[in-house]
């Protein structure tokens, strides 16, 4: 198989990598760029654990070929905190214990951040529909929804 040399921007920094044609963006983030925050849950776009922002759109990185990222912009969970300063969503998720095992959490945080950038004051229904593609098998979702609402309120008043 012919390998590709790909140039992208990841979390604002230039990133280049070599990949095989059938490697996904998720594979490259985790195995070649050492960014293991994005998780592989199902690998078929059902669970949302691998959520990233590709060219300003929320996507499942397991359903993107790494070669497609050429010239593109990728934002991952690793870029969410500002140094040691957590994003309000991250802070509230910890405070409100909106996670248990934590596998779904990076994807949910990336997806929730994308929602709040579009809609700073979403209703509970809007949050539930937006996050319908992020599966959590521990929490039962209520604490997650509440945490997103609380973080949204905090961000609005900031």
């Amino acid at each position, binding site marked *: 198989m012919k390998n590709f040399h790909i140039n992208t921007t990841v979390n604002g920094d230039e990133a280049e990598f070599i990949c095989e044609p059938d490697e996904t963006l998720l594979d490259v983030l985790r195995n070649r760029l050492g960014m293991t925050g994005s998780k592989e849950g199902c690998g078929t*776009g059902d669970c949302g654990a691998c959520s990233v922002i590709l060219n300003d*759109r929320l996507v499942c990185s397991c359903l993107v070929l790494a070669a497609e990222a050429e010239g593109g912009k990728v934002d991952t969970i690793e870029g969410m905190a500002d140094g040691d300063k957590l994003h309000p969503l991250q802070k509230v998720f910890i405070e409100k214990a909106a996670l248990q095992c934590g596998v779904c959490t990076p994807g949910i945080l990336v997806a929730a951040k*994308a929602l709040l950038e579009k809609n700073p004051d979403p209703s509970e229904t809007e949050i539930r529909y937006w996050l*319908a593609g992020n599966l959590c098998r521990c929490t039962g979702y209520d604490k997650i929804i509440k945490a997103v609402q609380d973080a949204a309120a905090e961000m609005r008043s900031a």
Partner: protein
Amino acid sequence: MKYVKPESLHAASVLLSEEPGTTRILAGGTDVLVQLRSEVVEPDLIVDLKHLEGFGDITSEDGGFRIGAGVPSAEMYEHKALHAAWPGVIEGAELIGSTQIQGRCTMVGNLCNGSPAGDSVPGMVAAGAVVRVHGPDGERDVPVEEIPTGPGKTSLAKGEFITSIFLPARPERSGDAYLRFIPRTEMDIAVSSAAANLELDTDGTVTSARVAVGAVAPTVRLVEEAGTALVGSKLDDTAIANMMAAVEAACSPIDDKRGTVEFRTKTAGVLAKRAAHIAYERAGGSK
């Protein structure tokens, strides 16, 4: 597996024509990557077309809209004029998968995946959408309902691919709608579905109607008799009953754990009725 981004439509067509093995065209990838990863299909060649001119664009044309084959559902949803003109088409497109899938999935991909349950397809068929096909013999325009020929199968020949979808101009009093039945509230595949597209005259009489159903036959089906049953009416009970009978007669669904033949047939009729009423209201008709 080879992954290629051809420089032109012609180059893409040549690549696809000359490849002796299995080929896949990559737009949003939300079906192709799943097939790849589950090893259902092991393509020898993947051709990525998203970067080609017009593939990512929604443009006005003859009072209607041309939607590039690489435009994701999320972008269509955000396009105000398109959303206002064709709310039913958008309704279908935005039911495909999750928010994450919406960021990538395309209507052309949904169509060419060939699923009888593809959520964006009945709305396009009811709308009278026409796809532009590029191939070794040049370009041709094809009514959308002529593309799928069976589960996972299309009428596209080797080397052919769809470059865009055209949704025609809307007369003033017109409306469309799409509904599906799923046992959950979100993230599921239609057990049955229906789309209706109506045009009315000034007193609210239907002058033109197209009804399409999904997940109740080997392909999404345009039910011409169902449309005919509504023309000349104001959706009175008799017209609706005739329309539902025509829909039920057009159903030849599978029988599985998700829905029996009887259930799929009955719900397709009910969904067509409800979609027709929503389309009527959107067209400015009142009862």
